[in-house]
């Protein structure tokens, strides 16, 4: 692929350890706002999903408020995610490496990333999260509008609403699962959270998880052929 793996603002700072800038501040704000709205959405959604969780409406000032706020949070999340999408979509495009990477997934899960093919800014798993979130958010906003009584009741039949509410709740579940994976991934790979909190990672982190990205960053040129010797 042409565009390369390097996003604007990515940079290397020599030193020990080497520090690499991965996320600019606006990207981080964008991410955390989106993340926050997701959490609130999940809580308000679950509150209306099952009586045993209705108590969660307490967090939003009661049932009516929950009902009123939830769709607006959804709208907010949609916009937020749109920002992330515009920022990162090109680094999430399919590359041949993703195929070989996927083939050695078991190795990755065992934590032996040193034996994995070098990946760019994002590995295959992260790309999956990215694209599935994109897809589900589209479905959620769509079905969400259908069941947004206050403004859109008139535009659809009851049967369409019924289907929408079913799809909406099912997709919500799947999304929550994906986010669990996403969050776990971030916690599992030590140093990852810092990327989103402080915006930087150590060179070692980059070398281990996104070597191709690091190389490009260092050489300034996008080159498919790995230089030097594989890490031992």
């Amino acid at each position, binding site marked *: 692929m042409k565009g390369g793996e390097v996003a604007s603002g990515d940079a290397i700072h020599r030193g020990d350890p080497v520090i690499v800038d991965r996320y600019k501040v606006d990207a981080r704000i964008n991410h955390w706002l989106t993340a926050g709205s997701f959490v609130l959405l999940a*809580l308000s959604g679950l509150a209306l999903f099952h009586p045993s969780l*209705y*108590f*969660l*409406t*307490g*967090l939003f000032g009661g049932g009516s408020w929950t009902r009123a706020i939830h769709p607006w949070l959804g709208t907010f999340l949609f916009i937020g995610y749109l920002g992330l999408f515009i920022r990162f979509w090109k680094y999430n495009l399919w590359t041949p490496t993703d195929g070989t990477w996927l083939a050695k997934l078991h190795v990755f899960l065992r934590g032996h990333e040193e034996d994995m093919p070098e990946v760019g800014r994002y590995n295959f798993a992260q790309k999956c999260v990215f694209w599935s979130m994109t897809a589900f958010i589209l479905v959620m906003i769509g079905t969400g509008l259908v069941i947004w009584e206050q403004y859109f009741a008139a535009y659809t039949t009851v049967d369409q609403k019924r289907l929408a509410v079913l799809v909406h709740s099912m997709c919500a579940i799947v999304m929550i699962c994906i986010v669990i994976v996403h969050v776990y991934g971030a*916690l599992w790979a*030590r*140093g990852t*959270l*810092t990327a989103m*909190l*402080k915006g930087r990672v*150590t060179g070692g982190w980059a070398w281990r998880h996104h070597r191709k990205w690091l190389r490009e960053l260092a050489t300034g040129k996008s080159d498919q052929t790995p230089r030097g010797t594989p890490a031992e």
Partner: protein
Amino acid sequence: MNMELSRRQFLAGSGAGLAGTTIAALGFGDVESAHAVSIRPFKLAQTKEARSTCPYCAVSCGMVIFSAQSKSAPGKMEIVHIEGDADHPVNRGTLCPKGSAALDYIRSETRVKYPMYRKPGANKFERVSWDFAMERIAKLMKDDRDQNFIEKNNDGTTVNRWTTMAFLSGSSCTNETGWLTWKVARGLGLLQLENQARI
């Protein structure tokens, strides 16, 4: 040290995660049981009832009219509900869409509230007092009667009629009003006296 940082963050995060359940423990869960069912209190309790007759068609259904102390005009009774009189042999408590809505008639927005007067050529009504209206009407009637009352016709027969004045009498008025109308109209010598019987 970055790692340390992140760990602390993580704990903090999980702490936040706990918050929900803690709140539950604090009794959010009791929200349900706090609410009791509410059946609207029966609104006719403590009202005064009067037996009346529907003002509309000539089935003349029996009505029960419920009234209570007015909130707007203290001391006055205000009609709060109307329904059919179940004791009435004809309607047996039923009412048609007009009768069922008779309350909206009594409190109609187009109800005349005060005597209103329209001057010749004017394009609006103005509010006047009853005394002004009645005095003016009596005057207009007397003047016209004095001009146009016929005591004897050409053959010299006493006819005592006043043909330039007309009275349309309402067929929803009571029999008593009807008779007073007849008496007043004929007493003045009116022949142009009609009601809705023909139309």
